């Protein structure tokens, strides 16, 4: 088991919640539904991303030099992630200031948000983790964005949007549960380090807590057909547990040097 990387857990989950809320705002716009309180909604979007970025600074040995992380945009996905997250925060804060994001502001925030999620997915898919050195981190992160985005957006949605958001949230939860349950089982058939990752995930209380919490969220949605006010908080806790397992339990290739791969 490696470090849980709590600042990164908070940054990735909170930033994805913020991006998901913007995606849901766009979906509601396409469906012709009006937002209940656009200023408050965008304030929460900016707040979540701001909190995530602030949390990520605690991961650095020298947080005051964080601005220099933009220096290697040419190759480093971490530099691109910082740029995209910064742009998203600026756009979300701008939208909150003008009373809600529409038109170019919404499209800009959506593109910057998707770029943040993809850049995060690439950053946390390094060659040292064979189990994650693929599209899986991006898939996990997009699913988290939709689950949390639909959940939190429901706080601000008019009555006409609530059934739509509940359906989106339920679909993302089902997809997320299937992916999360299948992936470690698939890893068991891979190379030695991938197999060790699968075993570590399946033996992790954090992983099972995440599955249990997200399954409970799905059960509540199934029963109610709407998203209760407290459900996004529960889903957030489930996502945080799952992300902690993602960082702590995935096995690094170097741990097996001298043995079969």
């Amino acid at each position, binding site marked *: 088991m490696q470090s849980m990387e709590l600042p990164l857990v908070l940054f990735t989950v909170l930033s994805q919640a913020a991006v998901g809320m913007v995606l849901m705002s766009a979906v509601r716009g396409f469906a012709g539904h009006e937002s209940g309180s656009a200023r408050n909604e965008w304030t929460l979007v900016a707040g979540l991303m701001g909190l995530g970025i602030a949390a990520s600074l605690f991961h650095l040995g020298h947080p005051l030099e964080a601005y220099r992380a933009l*220096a290697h945009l040419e190759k480093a996905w971490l530099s691109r992630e910082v740029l995209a997250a910064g742009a998203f925060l600026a756009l979300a804060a701008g939208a909150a200031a003008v009373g809600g994001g529409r038109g170019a502001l919404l499209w800009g925030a959506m593109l910057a948000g998707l770029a943040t999620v993809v850049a995060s997915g690439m950053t946390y898919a390094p060659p*040292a*983790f064979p189990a994650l050195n693929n599209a899986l981190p991006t898939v996990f992160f997009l699913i988290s964005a939709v689950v949390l985005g639909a959940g939190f957006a429901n706080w601000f949605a008019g009555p006409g949007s609530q059934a739509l958001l509940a359906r989106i949230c339920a679909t993302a939860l089902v997809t997320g549960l299937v992916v999360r349950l299948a992936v470690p089982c698939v890893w068991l058939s891979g190379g030695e380090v991938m197999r060790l990752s699968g075993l570590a995930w399946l033996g992790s209380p954090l992983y099972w807590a995440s599955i249990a919490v997200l399954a409970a969220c799905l059960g509540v949605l199934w029963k109610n057909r709407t998203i209760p006010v407290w459900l996004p908080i529960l889903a957030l806790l489930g996502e945080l547990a799952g992300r902690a397992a993602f960082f702590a339990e995935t096995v690094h290739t170097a741990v097996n040097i001298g043995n079969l791969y």
Partner: protein
Amino acid sequence: MKKHYAFLVDSEKCIGCFTCAMACRNYYHQVEGVVWRHVYPLGEGIYPHRERAFFSLACNHCENPACLNVCPVEAYTKREEDGVVVHHQEKCIGCGNCIRSCPYGAPVYNPVEKRAEKCSLCHERLDAGLLPACVQSCPTGALKLVDLATMEPGNEIQFPAGFPRNEKVNPSTRFIMPKVPTLVRR
């Protein structure tokens, strides 16, 4: 052709004495818990004999280094003249991205400096015409410095069992595998 320095690890000669790792430590005085060179015993799945065999490994000074590619502050450079991958610690912000990304676990976190660090192939010694501290200290000649640009092909291999196969980063270290020990029956 430009020089491309690399370590040649001869596991037939290595006796697992850790002199290389101690020489590295003696030369650089890393803080407690920070180790640039490790001596890994080969597991029974790879070398199933009563005799033991080892890989002495530090940074592989890869052709396409993961650490250099992922570093957001450009704290890594690869020297044009000899291919040595150098970490400029004063530029590092301690994000740990290189540590997570290197498949060989070469960069490590220095908890005092709060920045990463790794083997530099003793480039300052190379520039002075000296061998790296680990190579100079090896009592059996199991660890050598070679120039991949001029090395005659022999029985060296790049990806032996027990060493992560990552062709994309293309590690420079080469290995000579241990022979099967002779069994003497009475």
